[in-house]
């Protein structure tokens, strides 16, 4: 265990989450206007479909998988105890990862191609693309060349993450992991720390109440006076 390991796995995560919480809340309060999906479908419609749709479905499945393994590591290990079930889980995760990568590269190519789209691509977008591509590609690499990651995650990453959450960071869990897995983890922290400065904030404002609300919205500017 080196000081670098300490820095990357015991200090960086706290720094990343601190930045994440402070800056998303600050941005929401101080610059509410900047919270937007910043869609570019208006400028280009066809390739939009082939980039954005696989990207979103892929990445949502993968993130949900990570979250489930973090919350229920025991159940994941139990599920994986039968080889067929392990294979099903791994193949689903791999397909989702590939979808995400394909979508990511598709949207990236789409943005590089048109002069109109380059106009609405910021430096932060470019950094974000680099981080995301690395994150998804390293995940796929792990799935292909260091198989059975779902069991690994449940057995090593989950207890490590729980130790972080309990403010008793124990990085000994990560001791024997291959470098690419460590890079995958570090990059995840970078993404979390960078999150508030990117268009990713649209994830935080997904409007679920819409599904339960009445169709018409009326606002009374002058308050209660007008209501009976």
């Amino acid at each position, binding site marked *: 265990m080196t000081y670098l390991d300490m820095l990357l796995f015991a200090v960086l995560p706290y720094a990343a989450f601190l930045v994440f919480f402070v800056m998303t809340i600050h941005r929401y309060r101080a*610059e509410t206007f900047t919270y*937007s999906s*910043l869609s570019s*479908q208006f400028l280009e419609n066809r390739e*939009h479909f082939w980039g954005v749709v696989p990207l979103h479905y892929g990445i949502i499945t993968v993130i949900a998988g990570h979250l489930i393994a973090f919350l229920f590591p025991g159940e994941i290990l139990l599920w994986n105890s039968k080889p067929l079930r392990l294979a099903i889980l791994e193949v689903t995760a791999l397909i989702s990862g590939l979808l995400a990568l394909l979508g990511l590269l598709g949207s990236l190519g789409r943005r590089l191609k048109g002069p109109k789209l380059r106009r609405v691509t910021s430096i932060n977008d470019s950094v974000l693309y680099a981080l995301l591509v690395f994150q998804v590609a390293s995940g796929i690499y792990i799935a292909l060349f260091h198989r059975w990651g779902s069991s690994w995650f449940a057995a090593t990453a989950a207890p490590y993450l729980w130790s972080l959450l309990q403010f008793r960071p124990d990085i000994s869990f990560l001791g024997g992991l291959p470098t690419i897995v460590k890079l995958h983890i570090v990059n995840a922290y970078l993404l979390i720390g960078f999150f508030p400065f990117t268009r990713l904030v649209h994830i935080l404002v997904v409007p679920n109440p819409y599904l339960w609300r009445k169709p018409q919205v009326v*606002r009374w500017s002058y308050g209660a006076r007008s209501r009976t």
Partner: protein
Amino acid sequence: MEVRSQISMVFHLDKCIGCHTCSIACKNIWTDRKGTEYMWWTNVETKPGTGFPTCWEDQEKFQGGWKAENGKLELRSTSKRKAVTNMFHHPNMPTMDDYYEPWTYKYEDLFNAPEGTDQPTARPISMVSGEYINIEAGPNWDDDLGGSPVYAENDPNLAGLTPEQRAQLSAVERLVFFYFPRICNHCLNPACVAACPSGALHKRGEDGIVLVDQKRCRGWRACIAACPYKKVYYNWFTGKSEKCILCFPRIESGQAPACFHSCVGRIRYLGVLLYDADRLEEIAKKPTDELVEAHRSLILDPSDPQVISAARSCGIHDSVIEVAQESPIYKFVVDWKIALPPHIEYRTLPMLFYVPPLSPVMANQEGDTINHVSSDLFHDIDDSRVPMRFLANLFGAGHERHVRYALRKQKAVRWYRRALTVGDVSMETAERMLHEAGCSVEEAEAIYQLTSLCTFDDRFVIPPAHREEAIAMLEDPLEHKQAVGFGFISNPRRGA
């Protein structure tokens, strides 16, 4: 009865000269910013024509508005169910190609070009990418192109016209078109509001103006797909939707909206209508052939004592009720029934009404003389060069009776005035026409007054906003005394 007040509008199409002054007034005030260059909150279209964005009326393509099926009212492509399945990509979303790519010219080249044998030119450059572009479309691209096989012929309202009627619309030297100015209809059952996942779009309770809360909008763009009139626009730079705000800062201070104020033909009228909000859904679900009457029946008589007391109990200020009694819109829409809603079949219950235009007539020709008078005094209404069917597709959900009624009444008023002032028509004939058109002499005079001799104050009867009172009741006026000097007003900044 839930009484609400709604600022409503009438556009008198017979008076529109297609000068686009309204568009320019609006552009200069509201949409000269980056990302809004392509927007025209108010625009003037040539009919027959494809409009802006191109073919916006083609709901097979854009899937906007509501549909009523099996007694249920549902948004056509932006219902809650479809909001989930189309979450990341809405297939019917218009793109910039459906509008046009805004451009400017490289004017500095006119001054900086080195001396040579050619005249320097200012080439067009895109206001999006900043690169040289070939202009392929622009605002009013089909302006005055009635009869054009590229534009006019693709007008969705030509559906159901016979080949003869189509030919008649574009016959050389007899070609005919009229203007169709459009702003947001500030609908009673707005599809854009119902579709907005963020709850950013809303109707103001006090006056019914439909607005986008810029801080709540997240750029999901459901409103763009949902509005069948395509009057919500996406700001490609800020990532927010924007639309006509009916110049509410002007209305609140008693001024007419800029497009109304600047209208050269004085075609625009604005006033308050009271309506029953409890019946909205019931009305919006009615069968197509009942929609025009049903929509009209929503509007309450502001002089009816029962309505007045109900309005008071719903918190509507007496001064607003008084203004509603003076409303020019109520006269056009309810009293005279000569103003009709555009495309009521989209079921958004628009609150901008149009007086359909009396187009040039197809006179019956006998030898060398063209005879305008026949035993059937209204013969030329049905023989107008703009076929009744076309106007009915626009203003009657495909049913001709409403349009015919409005045109007959207008014609009768004209002949009555002609009998009075020119005298080449007998008053007996004129009165017979008024009678057949269902119009009394007093009503004819009133229509004449409000269409021809109307002053500024006749056309715009604006309710007082009573902001002072409302704010006083809302909070202590001295609350911020000695605490806050001035607030921060920051420019809207695009997110990273």
